[in-house]
């Protein structure tokens, strides 16, 4: 077993590598934040649809979740990138191809739709975890259906769901690395490029790993704090 490797950490601070790293980190954060917001919005809608009484709406919600969860994200990216533009009517296809940053837009679309399915599942299990007594109590105190959700269920469910909503941000954050396959220059692709140019893989991949790990640690700490702040006494028991 021989380990021959010359470390050269300062090279990361030189151009063009420094610029690639900055661009990669910015793109990763920007892409994941945007996709997360969209995923939460769609996910909440789909999750709520699955809780309604209408069997049709429920079916649509379930179909959405099953569809997006059972196809690997990389395949979804390829379908959005290679197949989706071909399916559009001719005029639309032309205007789609004229859009700037097509890889970024495609990545945003794929990531948010994929994650929305996961969010929808969390919303559903969050709402079903609420004891039925809460609904009964709210109804018997004379609240309307909308008020029940607005004042009782959502504040309750929201707190239960904070950890999962946060972990979905981290999921998107990590999944955004896949978008390098369609040419988005996020941090993993910057690291790959640095490795390919300099053959200093350890330094290059360390930058990417450190980015992911510090972000994860920050989000986990922040959410722990938030969860603690918003805790309803006696509800989310501290272990």
């Amino acid at each position, binding site marked *: 077993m021989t380990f021959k490797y010359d470390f050269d950490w300062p090279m990361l601070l030189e151009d063009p590598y420094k610029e690639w790293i900055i661009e990669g980190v910015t793109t990763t954060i920007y892409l994941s934040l945007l996709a997360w917001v969209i995923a939460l919005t769609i996910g909440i809608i789909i999750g709520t649809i699955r809780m309604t009484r209408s069997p049709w709406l429920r079916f649509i919600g379930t179909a959405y979740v099953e569809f997006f969860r059972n196809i*690997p994200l990389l395949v979804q990216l390829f379908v959005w990138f290679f197949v989706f533009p071909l399916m559009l009517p001719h005029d639309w296809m032309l205007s789609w191809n004229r859009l700037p940053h097509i890889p970024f837009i495609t990545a945003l679309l794929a990531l948010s739709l994929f994650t929305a399915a996961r969010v929808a599942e969390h919303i559903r299990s969050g709402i079903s975890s609420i004891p039925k007594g809460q609904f009964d109590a709210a109804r018997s105190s004379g609240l309307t259906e909308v008020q029940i959700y607005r004042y009782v269920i959502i504040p309750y469910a929201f707190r239960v769901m904070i950890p999962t909503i946060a972990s979905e941000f981290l999921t998107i954050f990590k999944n955004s690395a896949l978008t390098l396959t369609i040419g988005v220059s996020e941090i993993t692709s910057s690291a*790959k490029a640095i490795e390919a140019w300099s053959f200093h*893989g350890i330094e290059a991949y360390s930058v990417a790993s450190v980015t992911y790990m510090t972000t994860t640690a920050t989000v986990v700490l922040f959410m722990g704090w938030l969860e603690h702040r918003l805790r309803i006494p006696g509800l989310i028991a501290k272990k």
Partner: protein
Amino acid sequence: MDWSVIATHLPFLMKGLWMSVKLATLVVIFAFPLACLIAVGRISSRSWIRYPSAIFVNTMRSNPLILIVFWFFFLVPIIIGRPVGDFASVMIGFIVFFSAYFTEIIRSGIQSVGRNQIQAGLSTGLTYFQTMRMIVLPQALRNMMPALITECVIVFQGTTIAYVVGLREFLNSTFLITEITLRPAELYTFAAIVYFVVCFAGSSLARQMEKRKVRT
């Protein structure tokens, strides 16, 4: 749309699918025992075992699989000192990465069995290992079965990432055929359908088991 392109290249595509299945199966076979060891380390009372296990699991879980694959693709030949082939490098990366996820499933499975079960076992005169083997593990395994199957589906989905290093699994084979035939619409739709069918079967099985678990 011209679906005949799929029929023409079906043998090549199926070879790719077989590669994906093989990769996923091998990864699960190797990652699971490894994860059992790390899970035991994770709940160990000795801190010099517990902390390294926790650091390993959290490191793997906070990095994307694709980056882990790049890491191993780069590092394995350097550490071993000679090229070991794409398949081995990718597989080692997958095993290490997924063992962290399996660890968490196994750990929560073991912890889902109440402490009083262990006490009851010990008080009937069983040794610690007998209690583990005959009382805790059978219950733990049943509790974690749905999550394990879901994770196997995720491993299968994860094999698509071998695409980035050019391993000829199903997605990569599909990609190669699109390069030749210039028929991305049919081929990627076909790939999506195949993945959907396999993964849907897996996740339906997991759901069935979840239901049965609730009933018993």
